[in-house]
């Protein structure tokens, strides 16, 4: 007789399993978790802290906050950041000061670890939320983060 009770119990567990998937089938219209990506670009909003790529914000007068201290270059584990700098004469004090010529950022090598942003003493770089970075030509992934003709914001070194 345990033959029949085994069969009965087995069929009962199979039917409970089917009821779980059946329930999802019936609520499939609004329960689908697919995001129809290229169509929903307008409403897609990434979180603030999302690590898309490293950017250097500039204010309205095209000034950035990078003093060229090279702490980010030292902190980066694999040489993603290269700073090309120069010593120039500062206008106000007349002393020799470092200023950056180009802040080269190799997006193709970046592991998004965030150590560069962590050690920057002047908050010059921060995370941007753009994740659509695919290009046809690999040299387009080597970016220069400071815009041409931009200068250092005064009062940052304090």
């Amino acid at each position, binding site marked *: 007789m345990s033959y029949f009770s085994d*069969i009965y119990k087995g069929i009962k567990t*199979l039917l409970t*399993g*089917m009821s*779980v*998937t*059946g329930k*999802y*089938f019936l609520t*499939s219209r609004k*329960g*689908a*978790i*697919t995001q*129809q990506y290229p169509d929903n670009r307008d409403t897609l909003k990434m979180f603030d802290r999302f690590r898309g790529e490293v950017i250097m914000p500039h204010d309205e007068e095209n000034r950035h906050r990078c003093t060229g201290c090279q702490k980010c270059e030292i902190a980066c584990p694999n040489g993603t950041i290269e700073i090309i700098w120069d010593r120039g004469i500062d206008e106000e004090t007349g002393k020799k000061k470092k200023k950056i010529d180009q802040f080269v950022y190799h997006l193709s090598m970046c592991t998004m670890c965030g150590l560069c942003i962590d050690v920057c003493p002047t908050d010059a770089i921060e995370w941007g939320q753009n994740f659509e970075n695919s290009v046809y030509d690999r040299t387009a992934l080597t970016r220069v983060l400071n815009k041409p003709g931009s200068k250092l914001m005064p009062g940052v070194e304090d």
Partner: protein
Amino acid sequence: MIRALSITKGIHDWLFSIMSENAAHLVEMILIALVYLAIFAIAGLFLVLIERRVAAWFQLRIGPNRVGFQGLLQTMADALKLLSKELTGTEKADKFLYNLAPYFVIITALMALAVIPFTQDFHAFDINIGILFLIAISSIGVIGILLGGWSSNNKFALIGAMRSGVQTISYELSIGLSLLTMILITGTLQLSEIVEVQKNGWLIVQGHIPAIIAFMIYMIAGTAETNRAPFDMAEAESELGAGFHTEYSGMKFAYFFLAEFINMFIIAAIATTVFFGAWLSPFGITESIPLLGVFWFLAKAMVLVFLMMWFRWTFPRLRVDQLLTLEWKYLLPLNLMNIVIMALIVWQNLTIQF
């Protein structure tokens, strides 16, 4: 009143009037073959799309809905892609058998389609041993799988083909016996006669308890016949590549693939005919509207196909020895007991007639 018979009779008479007898017969046969090929192709395309969308809804996704309205042209696009693929072959494969294997499965699927009654008189081949013909045809399909596995000269394919062969011939026994249980009520093997008997109530209602048990056994055995989950050890994707059709690509792979879906439809169609009264409407409400039988038949068959898809996407896979244990130790004894019960019921006139 337009019955299917009057359309075909009209074409028949017209053909005979314009050419000689032999030529007219030949043209008729070619026309019928083309109609069935068209049904085969369209049903195959439609079923593949339905499978993908239903699977997606079970899995909290939306299925293909970009190509064409709601994805209707998706399978056409896939078929075109498969057509353009290179027909590869392994170098030590047995060329003749390798090319022959897909045709076995296609031909058996088409032959089985020919005897199914879609509606009154929409019958290509109404012979008086209909059910026997169907069971015999499904046995020939095994050859295609075994040939495909053997001639690929690939260890994985061979293992898959052997497993599939052993599974198919075991479960044919259950299918045959469960259909036999229903023949006890009808007393005839001819498919159109079986539908006539069901005008007094569908067979699953006429033979209450043993008919329901026979239906359940038939669905389980039918799913196993077509190598679908939970019995798809032969083509277990997460175990050994793709089983017996690993080495096929392009159109030949499309044949195997389509044949699997058409087999699923055939199993559902046979169940509809024998258990659920083919093209008859429930309680006979729309008997007077001709040609509506096709709609009822397709609706019932689609419900059963949906049931088979539900099985596939819910249950884990059975191991090969557990498959065979299920058949020989559980389904076969139950089937035999069921036949005895059904025979008792028919003998004592305990069937429910309307």
